[in-house]
């Protein structure tokens, strides 16, 4: 039995990862903002086989409470073996362009709150010389695009931060796994027309859990996104700025 802290536990990707861990009999500590859904998910994971489920209701943008969240998780389960950070919102790019507040809120939700958590978790895991930290970033962080560069730049920050953190913690036996999902069919992306590039959250979760098991460094989910993003990154800026993307 491993002890797993899932942050953003009501996100579809996190929930499906947690189902796999529950079926393995892991103990789960679930943190998210929506108390009603948190309770539904905790009951579900218990039936699916989780050794324990605990819930913690918090707005993750309230960074003053991050240390308390980690303390509570440790108090409930003891040493934590693994953390998945999965919370986030899909920014409304048009609204962000018209509002500094909106832009900064999105950056806070999708980057700064994650970085706050990572800073605290990294020090705790470094001290005990063990643990795995998995973070949901995004393919959107690989290159800013006109259609969602606020979200993309926040995720770029997460990707760069975890890259550095991975180097730092490598010598302390702590693994940092950066996960870059492509298009996933979840409530967050309900407004989008779905095509061939879209993946289901259970398939994405299976891939993510495997990447965490094998302590991969950086993974694209599904894997073909590596090729897609390699092409997008290779386009010279002189050209890229003319493309509608």
């Amino acid at each position, binding site marked *: 039995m491993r002890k797993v802290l899932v942050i953003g536990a009501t996100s579809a990707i996190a929930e499906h990862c947690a189902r796999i861990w529950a079926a393995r009999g892991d103990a789960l500590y679930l943190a998210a903002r*929506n108390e009603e859904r948190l309770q*539904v998910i905790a009951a579900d994971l218990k039936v699916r086989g989780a050794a324990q489920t605990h819930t913690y209701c918090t707005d993750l943008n309230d960074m003053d409470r991050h240390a308390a969240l980690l303390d509570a998780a440790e108090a409930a389960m003891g040493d934590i073996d693994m953390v998945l950070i999965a919370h986030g919102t899909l920014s409304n790019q048009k609204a962000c362009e018209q509002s500094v507040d909106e832009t900064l809120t999105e950056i806070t939700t999708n980057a700064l709150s994650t970085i706050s958590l990572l800073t605290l978790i990294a020090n705790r895991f470094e001290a005990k010389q063990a643990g795995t930290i998995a973070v949901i970033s995004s393919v959107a962080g690989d290159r800013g695009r006109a259609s969602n560069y606020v979200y993309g730049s926040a995720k770029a920050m997460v990707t760069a931060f975890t890259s550095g953190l991975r180097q730092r913690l490598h010598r302390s036996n702590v693994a940092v796994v950066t996960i870059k999902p492509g298009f996933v069919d979840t*409530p967050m992306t*309900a407004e989008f027309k779905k095509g061939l590039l879209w993946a289901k959250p259970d398939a994405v979760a299976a891939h993510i859990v495997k990447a965490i098991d094998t302590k991969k460094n950086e993974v694209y989910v599904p894997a073909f996104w590596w090729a897609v993003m390699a092409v997008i990154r290779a386009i010279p800026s002189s050209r890229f700025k003319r493309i509608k993307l």
Partner: protein
Amino acid sequence: MTVATHTPTTISGWGNYPTQEAQVITPLSPSAYQTQLAQHPSVIARGMGRSYGDSANAPVVLQTTYSDHFIAFDADTGLLNVEAGVLLRDILKVTVKQGWFLPVTPGTSFVTVGGAIASDVHGKNHHVAGTFGQHVVSITMLLGTGEVVTTSPTQLPELIHATCGGMGLTGVILSATIKLIPIKSAFISQKTIKAGCIEAACEAFEANSNATYSVAWIDCLATGKDLGRSVLMVGEHADSGGLDLTVKDPITVPIHTPAALLNSMTMRAFNHAYWAKASDKKTQTLPLLPYFYPLDAIGGWNKLYGKAGFVQYQFVLPKKDGVANMRQILTQIAQSGQGSFLAVLKQFGPANQNLLSFPIAGYTLALDFKMSQSTIDLLHRLDDMVAGMGGRVYLTKDAVMREVSFKTTYPNWEQFESVRQKYGAIGRFASAQSKRLGLA
């Protein structure tokens, strides 16, 4: 609470016929179902879209995909409480290893509990266990009035008897408690019996009426003395072998294959090979999933029928004169040359009290037809024959039945409508099928 909505999209049942432009809304919580119901004059709930025809087609559908949570399971009593969008497959993954199995299961595990209730599905054990609805302890549902109520055989009993088999027309099923059955093994011991004609097949069912599970593959293209030749498979839960459920992901049919691939020649060849390969009185042990759900191994097998789609036609004939009547219908189907290679014959036990539930004591036959105008004409002829013999057609598979056939063969339809009236369902819950069949 945020509500997930989708842009208009084309939906259909498993037979890919007929299709419908629909707004597919996927609520995240019970309160989100209420919000959506308040915003739309008429909706229908939709699970996996595994009913074959148009019973989950409507301009606005409430898809239960995100209502896929287990609520509670008592491994001492086998009582399971789940949200409506939980798949039978997911239930098995959780309960089999604890020694519990579904009391009734249809031929695919990729259906939701809500869908299984709305269709009052049956399985290979109908003759001893009845339908799925007969093992439902209670249902929590959203009514057309916006009210959420719980119904059981003792609590608003008329509502549960209209809802089990009610094709989603009484309200939106939010969650249900069902009673599972204990098992000692994740395996089934299966015996194969060959029957050379329809009379022999029905005798074999009679002779094996004590078996827990029984079903027959039937060659609908065979004629003359071979008419209705069948391979009967009877099964019992094994006592040994352990409780590990082997789950393999399906291989997937990626695209609609040219419909010409399935023609009368390939089907005849398949049926000959199947008959020749089966050996009489052979006993073998099979894991649960391949035994109950052989077709689940091929994801998207419905695409094999090409873009025009197909209908699965399932009817039941009363036991009295059932064999002779079945011979008449098989003759008609064999003459048409349109029957499929997937045809299934089964003996049903007695009917239940659910108002629109399909099974009645007798013989049921299910087979696929590639979609075409001549198929529709044939099915209408068969509908008339079935009605004349006192039988009826399964609403979960129906895509073409006319109103008159429905109202003749489901005599409880008026009582069904009065229950819907009483619970505010009239007009609030409707599907393409309910409109075609003349329900309000």
